[in-house]
């Protein structure tokens, strides 16, 4: 017996080597609302347990007590109006008692009004990344805006060659930074298909639907980094568009905004700079691998029936201006989205140059390079 116990312990230790498996319940979260939701969830859970104990208790008792070997002669009774009334009315009362706290909490969660001192962040779902626009913080004339892409390297999930990091599939290049103790309204929408913005720690899950703006309001009480996911099937890389929110103090938040503004000024300077082909290529390859390769593949071959090949494409080889237009505007009715807001002029020029110089496209085509100024020119004419 001791030996067996030891074996079981060993097995369980090897299987449950981390403590994460203990996460078998909903997190309490870090907002007042999320804690209320947790309380409601536990209330419902214990009511279900109580009903289960009673119903299954009677059932299992009857199954044991009235087994044939113990009870040769079955009773013959049918219908009992008092009993039937009771098992209709009692559940009804329990349901009303459940509905009351649920309804009042729901009403509280549906308070979407803007508040004094609160901030509004527009959240836009894209296949397969999130865009955030801080509507109250201007950079130049436009609101502060950035895209948030998965940073887990492909060799951790596609080839499984690298060891998986602690925040595997839950890490992004640009975190959403927000102040604590401030009412934040997330105004959620989508650019293409339906996504869903799910942050368990805030008890927020709202669908991002093209043509609609859904509101979720939250006030975070505790500083920290919180991670969430897309929860509406949005195509191939549905599992690869995580959400990371970093809640900081008001002071740190203001610093972060200032950094963002400085970075925007830096960029204006970089656009003016003369770029060599090698500089463009090395930056372009990195962007291609993180932004484009999911569809068009690392080798540029695309996926037949879904995503066209860039290797050997007539546009990529010979038609510079058409390629710029596709990247700037996207292709309506297809999954090719506009990258005008996602990539700055330098990034755009580098990635286009990279595709034009790779996979023998330079040898088979005109081999021309696109420089940041081409993108600036396009914007001046068309936007």
């Amino acid at each position, binding site marked *: 017996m001791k030996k067996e116990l030891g074996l079981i312990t060993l097995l369980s230790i090897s*299987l449950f080597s981390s403590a*994460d*498996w203990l996460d078998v*319940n*909903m*997190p309490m979260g870090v907002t007042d609302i999320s804690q209320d*939701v947790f309380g*409601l*969830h536990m209330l419902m859970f214990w009511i*279900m347990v109580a*009903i*289960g104990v009673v*119903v*299954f208790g*009677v*059932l299992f008792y*009857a*199954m044991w007590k*009235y*087994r*044939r070997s113990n*009870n040769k002669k*079955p009773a*013959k*009774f*049918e*219908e*009992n109006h008092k*009993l*039937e009334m009771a098992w209709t009315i009692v*559940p009804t009362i329990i*349901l009303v008692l459940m*509905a009351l706290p649920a*309804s009042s909490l*729901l009403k509280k*969660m549906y308070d979407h009004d803007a508040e004094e001192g609160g901030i509004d962040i527009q959240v836009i779902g894209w296949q397969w990344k999130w865009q955030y626009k801080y509507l109250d913080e201007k950079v130049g004339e436009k609101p502060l805006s950035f895209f948030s892409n998965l940073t887990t390297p492909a060799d951790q999930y596609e080839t*499984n060659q690298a060891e*998986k990091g602690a925040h*595997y*599939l839950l890490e992004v290049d640009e975190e959403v930074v927000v102040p604590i103790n401030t009412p934040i309204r997330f105004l959620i929408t989508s650019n*293409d298909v339906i996504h869903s913005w*799910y942050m*368990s720690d805030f008890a927020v*899950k*709202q*669908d991002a*639907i*093209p*043509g*609609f703006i859904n509101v979720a309001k939250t006030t975070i009480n505790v500083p920290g980094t919180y991670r*969430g996911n897309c*929860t*509406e099937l949005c*195509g191939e890389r549905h*599992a*690869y568009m995580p959400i990371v929110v970093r809640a900081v103090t008001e002071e740190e938040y203001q610093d972060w905004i200032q950094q963002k503004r400085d970075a925007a000024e830096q960029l204006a300077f970089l656009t003016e700079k003369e770029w060599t082909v090698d500089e463009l290529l090395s930056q372009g390859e990195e962007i291609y691998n993180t932004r484009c390769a999911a569809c068009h593949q690392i080798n540029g071959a695309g996926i*037949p*029936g*879904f995503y066209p090949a860039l290797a050997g494409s007539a546009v990529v080889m010979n038609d510079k201006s058409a390629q710029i237009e596709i990247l700037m505007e996207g292709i309506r009715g297809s*999954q090719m989205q506009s990258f005008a807001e996602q990539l700055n002029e330098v990034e755009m020029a580098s990635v286009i140059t990279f595709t034009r110089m790779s996979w023998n496209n330079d040898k088979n085509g005109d081999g021309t390079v696109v420089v940041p100024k081409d993108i600036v020119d396009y914007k001046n004419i068309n936007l």
Partner: protein
Amino acid sequence: MSAVVEHHDHDHGPKKGLTRWLFTTNHKDIGTLYLWFSFLMFLTGGAMAMGIRAELFEPGLQLLDPIKYNQLVTMHGLIMIFGGVMPAFVGLANWLIPMQIGAPDMALPRMNNLSFWLLPSAFTILLSTAFMEGGMPGFGWTFYAPLSTNYPNIAYFVFAIHIMGISSIMGSINVIVTIMNMRAPGITLMKMPLFVWSWLITAYLLIAVMPVLAGAVTMLLMDAYFGTSFFDAAGGGDPVLFQHIFWFFGHPEVYIMILPAFGITSHIISTFSRKPLFGHASMVYAMVSIAVLSFVVWAHHMFTVGMPLVAELFFMWATMLIAIPTGVKVFNWVATIFKGSITYETPMLFAIAFVVLFTIGGFSGLMLAITPADFQYHDTYFVVAHFHYVLVPGAVFSIMAAVYYWLPKWTGNMYDETMGKLHFWLSFIGVNVTFFPQHFVGLAGMPRRYADYALQFAEWNAISSIGAFLFGASQLLFLYIVVKSVFAGKKATAQVWDGARGLEWTVASPAPYHTFEIPPKITKSTKV
């Protein structure tokens, strides 16, 4: 031999060979076809589930790429719902409804043949996309627009759904006409066996909602190929409208897959408790209430789309109401067992497991109805656990219970009881090991339809996959047991089970090719 051929055969036994099955209008043959077809689909959809669980065994992409993963998830759902559970119930309806109401056959036998043979055509079309560029549909069985409208090969999917819908509607008309017109004199509506009642209600649900599904897929087709914008916001359409239409079909569809299970369970529990069902009339009223309520709860699948507060409250309350008639059914089964004289043959084991595990699925269902908490549960594995608890140990267990219960009547042979019990226990353990841990990862925040997941969910997913492989492998045992009983086994008596009541037990085992050509006499003491 030639003398025998020339002899005029009064009994009109079945034809020989393939044409028997192609041209048959006999309700028993068609029932058999439906049941074998559904079993084939069950194994096909099950193989896909094995692929899904193998990929999810550990984090990272090992066996499938995300496109193939989404395709398997989609096809698993479509095949199990439209190819597995629904045809299995139609097969049982074909075999049992005429025998239980003392009718010689279904009312519309030629249409019966057509409604079966449409199904293999539909699934051939649907599965043929696997061999095309772009492959099978990969947008989930709920095919939400606008993800689905931009997908390759969607026309095949739409056409297949249309054919399945036509098949279901024809089958339902047949069931309703049969029940309304062909009951033996003396079987009043309220005397009708519960399986027949459950199918009468199911058939009305099907006729009401299959056209809605047809409308949804047609609009999708128009959006994808004819430039309309029903569901495209950029063209003035509404992606949320799609979900309203889909779930107006989808929620009654859920009950289409569970009402016949209620009927089956009631028969089996009464038989093996050797006691009449506690409340026949209240069971009927409960099923009718569930069916009516199923039309006003659809938006509880859409709590996170941003509906106004009043709509959320209405759908929360309406959904909670369903717990009342469902509770009545569970209490009735418990009261039937109470003071019975119970034995635990395989059908009874499956029926009891149905009651317990379906109730657990009901508990998580009630939790999901609570809108504020649903914001956390929605589209996580908690939902996956919930609907698999009501569909696998719910609907599928009831079908297995029914097969074991009526198999001796169909084949004339008893199945192997020891093997049957082994099949039950393996399935019971497998199903719980598979789906119970999914509650945990769901509550901890693992979204559904993910090909890959964060490390914190690894342990429970590994366990869930092991359970799934056990459950999957056990079904081959089921196949073996059924095939064995077709060819061999202890001869069954007409009564088969000493506690069974109903007209099907008054005819010989195996049931003759034609039964009740003359309606049976129903007297006060006849148990139907």
